[in-house]
């Protein structure tokens, strides 16, 4: 724990559209916020904004989820391990491209899954040793069942979901909390240009509030918007013989 009573949070993937509202919420709640992303110099205006909003100093660090060899030294460089680590890291390439170009699929899988196995795994090891901490990972409903239109992205997210479930299982006795967030549609750059049904689509601000809420309430697996839990539980019940004929 940094300082007397100041809690800290590390946000991985700080260029994500959800990162800015999320950082504001945590800073206003009195957290020391560390933003981590590639090209971290581009985060300087976000740091000024956070300072004005919260009266707290925040920090920006250079971080590349694909640079797995550098993850140890990235964490060492933080000094103290933050109380909470949130991963917003994600990359979605259109399915058509991913299925015809393996390099694109490879990049997507490394970004959404392998890189996170490295960084979150190491964070987990250090939190286990400390005996406290919270890891929040943003996965996706796309990982709950593979669909023709999005299954390479979905399979990487499925891997992440299973990984986090296992971490939770392993770390429960060591007082480390692992929270999996599964958004449905979110109106971000990732989904720009897609026609999304308004009732099922969240804004980044809304998702950020849901993450904070899940953290506060120590929820384990959270769907957002909540209707997705129902939708997905129905989709998961469909027999494969039926599901394979559906266009979803």
């Amino acid at each position, binding site marked *: 724990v940094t300082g007397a009573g100041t809690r800290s949070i590390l946000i991985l993937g700080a260029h994500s*559209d959800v990162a800015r509202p999320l950082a504001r919420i945590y800073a206003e709640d009195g957290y020391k916020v560390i933003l981590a992303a590639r090209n971290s110099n581009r985060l300087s*205006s*976000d740091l*000024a904004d956070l300072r*004005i*909003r919260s009266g707290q100093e925040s920090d920006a660090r250079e971080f590349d989820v694909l640079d797995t060899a550098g993850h140890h030294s990235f964490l060492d460089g933080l000094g103290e391990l933050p109380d909470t680590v949130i991963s917003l890291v994600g990359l979605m390439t259109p399915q058509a491209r991913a299925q015809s170009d393996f390099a694109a699929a490879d990049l997507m899988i490394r970004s959404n899954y392998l890189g996170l196995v490295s960084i979150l795994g190491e964070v987990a090891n250090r939190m286990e040793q400390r005996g406290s901490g919270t890891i929040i990972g943003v996965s996706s409903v796309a990982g709950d069942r593979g669909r023709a239109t999005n299954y390479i992205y979905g399979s990487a997210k499925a891997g992440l979901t299973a990984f986090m479930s296992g971490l939770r299982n392993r770390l429960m006795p060591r007082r480390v909390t692992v929270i999996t967030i599964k958004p449905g549609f979110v109106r971000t*750059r990732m989904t*720009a*240009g897609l*026609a999304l049904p308004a009732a099922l689509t969240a804004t980044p601000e809304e998702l950020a509030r849901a993450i904070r809420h899940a953290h506060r309430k120590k929820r384990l697996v959270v769907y957002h918007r909540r209707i997705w839990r129902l939708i997905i539980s129905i989709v998961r019940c469909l027999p494969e013989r039926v599901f394979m004929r559906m266009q979803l």
Partner: protein
Amino acid sequence: MILTGWGRYPAIDCKIETLRDTSDISRIFELDRSLIARGNGRAYGDAALNPETTLLMKGCDRFLEFDPEAGSVECEAGMLLSDLLEIIVPHGWFPPVVPGTKFVTIGGLIAADVHGKNHHVDGSFGRHIESLRLALPDGSVVTCSHSENDELFAATIGGMGLTGIILSARFRLRPVASKFIDETIIRAPSLEALLSLFNAHHAATYTVAWIDCLARGPNFGRGVMILGEHAMPDRPFNDNKSRRKPGPRLSVPVELPISPLTRMTIGLFNEAYYRLQKPRVRRRFYDDYFFPLDIVQNWNRIYGRRGFIQYQCVIGGKDAENGLRRILELVRDVGLGSFLAVLKKLGPGNRYLSFPMNGYTLAVDFPVRVATMDGLTRLDAVLSEHAGRIYLAKDARAPRNLIERGYPDIERFRELRRKIDPNRKIRSVLSERLGL
């Protein structure tokens, strides 16, 4: 993506681009398409629509600087007024001018040069801007102020986003002693009484009147005057009792298939409202005083699928009261004036396309129907006789000659546009409709 203004008319299929960092603006200008910036989409008509590119600015919503000692702030243009209020009010500061909703962006406030209930004392928002950063159609970014690029500065204030993309602005704030407004309500049984109240209370900080557009005979022009002053503190700023959850508490979840607003329902509403507004003085939270309609999310949906037009005009000159009376008579006879008819006496205005000027401004909502469109044309004729102005931020249908007559600086504005934007890179449905 189908976009509309707040009036939900017209609906245009627009290609969307999103700006998250003001430094990315050059990428947008490199696209081989015309564009217009869009804030929170609270202009009522076609001001923030361009089918080729509508540039969403809400991602640029950072504070750049805030001096809680001197009371000045610099922020990116996509910041919402509601967001600004959350941060500055606890420090004892208030925006110099606020419109009737807090869900507008700072860029939008500048582009429409909005006025508030204090216009007769403090002028429009543009008067309080110290400087702004503007991305020009040639891709360069310039700083504008009274001393630097002053013509561009003046034209951008009220320029409907047509002089460049407003990236950020620095403006002065007003010190306040509390989060509360002392509100005084006075009923006026006739138009004469209402207008004389504006004169009697010209020194009040905030003045605005609701006017019953359907009242006939001796009740014609009756209304309710609402005065406001920033209250002295009776609770500390950080008192949690005075902190209410911000944001809407009610919502119109879906577009109503037909509008429930008819002559009869509006008449009944107006009668009830007038009777309920007992003269009184009360202390109100600033949110409730300035932004009463923000409580109902998506209230614009009650006008049904076809949307609505807010007809807001200003009539100045010696004959202003007579002109206002003629307009009100027509609104009464057209018979579709909504329950949201607002009257306000304005002070002196700015240049170029800024709307406010000395005189009376009236704002009336009309559901979009064939009959109302014909009625509005009749209003135009009277307005034109009095050289009155239509508020471009509300407009979706005014004819070009009416706008040309109402805005004497329009040729200078066009001249400036020809100079800085010869290829008309920046365009909106509004600018094409009115040849701006």
